[in-house]
């Protein structure tokens, strides 16, 4: 089953709405609450990254009986050094973003922890594509 959600860059008040929708769906599908939690936590971080660092994006969700595959694509500045971005505490967040309580540089590491597979590809000045896969079994 496929679902698609838009993510608006810069709008922190709406950040989390796509991941909440996915959460609702997973609850209806009787997925184990612990796996729902892991999935939603990683999707939320990914969604916030688009809001905080990119211009716009979307979340494509594909749910099968054994796994959920989510692709989050954005149009934005891209990530020049992915290994560096993956490090705990590394952040390029602006002071304004930090003031809103984001920018600890914990998002990507948190996604890694809460997903079974995570793949990032990024092109500077074009955008970033993040794939998250979690297995239900």
């Amino acid at each position, binding site marked *: 089953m496929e679902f698609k959600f838009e993510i608006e860059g810069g709008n922190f008040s709406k950040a989390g709405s796509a991941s909440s929708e996915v959460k609702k*769906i997973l609850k*209806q599908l009787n997925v184990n609450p612990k796996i*729902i939690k892991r999935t939603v936590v990683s999707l939320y971080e990914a969604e916030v990254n688009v809001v905080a660092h990119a211009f716009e994006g979307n979340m494509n969700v594909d749910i099968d009986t054994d796994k959920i595959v989510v692709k989050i694509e954005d149009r934005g500045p891209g990530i020049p050094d992915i290994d560096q971005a993956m490090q705990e505490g590394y952040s390029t967040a602006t002071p304004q973003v930090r003031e809103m309580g984001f920018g600890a540089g914990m998002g990507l590491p948190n996604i890694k922890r809460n997903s079974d597979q995570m793949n990032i590809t990024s092109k500077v000045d074009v955008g970033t594509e993040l794939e998250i896969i979690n297995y239900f079994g």
Partner: protein
Amino acid sequence: MEQIHFYHALKVVDEVCIGCTHCMNVCPTAAIRVKNGTANINKNACVDCGECLKACPVNAIIVEQDDFTQIFNYKQRVALLPTVLLGQFPDDVSEVQIYNEIKDLGFTHVYEVDGAVDVLIDSTKKFMHKHHQERPFISSFCPAIVRLIQVKFPALVDNIIQLKPVIDISAQFYRKKLQDKGYAQNEIGIFYVTPCAAKIAAVKSPVGEEKSLIDGVINMDFIYNKVLLSIKNSKKETKKYPENIHMSRRSIGWTLTTGEASRYSGRCLAIDEIHNVIEVLEKLENEEITDVDFLELRACDHSCAGGVLATENRFLAIERLRKRAAWYHRNKPMIMPEREIDLYKTYLQENIGISKVEPRSILSLDSDMMVAMKKMKKINRIMKVLPGIDCGACGAPRCQALAEDVVQGKAKMTQCVFLQKMLTKEGLISPQESFDISEDTWGKSRFEKKNLNDH
């Protein structure tokens, strides 16, 4: 053991219900449907919050209570009171009178449950320290919230603190105390005067405990009326406050908002009113809110002062309770005499634990995921046909709810009045069939001939 059948004290009186849908639209778990012209509550989904009762314009929803005379089945009859009860009475009624009148009703002992808060605060601090990796902690205070988490937020059940609320601690205290005085188990009857339906459900179908320590429940409005009536008739003058009891500010404030949250260190939030609570639980579940230590969550607006069985306006009740707390604080004895409950502290703390709260999600469409997916696809297809205006004329609170009911075999798509019109226009159902469907939802009497010209 968790029961399969959940006891609910809230009942719809069919003869009074006019099928107006007010209750259906406010229910936070979408537990209500209108069928045959009256509201029906789904027992698995209801969390006993009382929102429906508060919204009903004709008082068709009542809170069932145990027969009062059952107290006389016991030699020792203990009335456990919530402190909010003391805030219900007019200012010229004294506490001494209230206590006396409750005894005159037939109780041998009267005790305010919030006298047990110190035992709980102490144990809660220890619990949070010991399980610090499981923060944020959610209080087990409000039974409606515990049930809400079970049915709607199954991932959060482990965050609920596994300790008894003060009512149960008080019940255990009194039972032990009377046993120590030589009374047998079956001579002791413990009755809780409840401000809400949720506490009744907690006594009748406890969560995390095998059996409740309470023998029966008495509705607060019932006690209020009885007590006030006899006070009005007797006109005995007494002092406003008793001389031999001291109630701490902690105890009196416990059932009010911030009563718990103000007692613990770290980041503690106090949230009242069930929709506010749902908003926060959503964020908590997504880990949008982190770095919180303790959550005091209550279903009623302004906590138990806003309980469905409260008779007084909640703002006035709160003001009175604050005044009461201030009086006791000013008149605190220089040397605090040892309170009886303190003698039992070790015993009570040894028995204060409850088992893990089990989730019982009402959200899943099917336990088999393959089937659930099929159902979800079907729901999405139905949603494309329904108008999406959530009018409730089908007897379900939202189009989405009707679509789910259809897929679960609990409703027919043709209950939607828009679909009925379209199908009738296309000749797929006859006007009579359409009329019959509406009668099934709204009951025959709704459609009895009314002459438009009479008005």
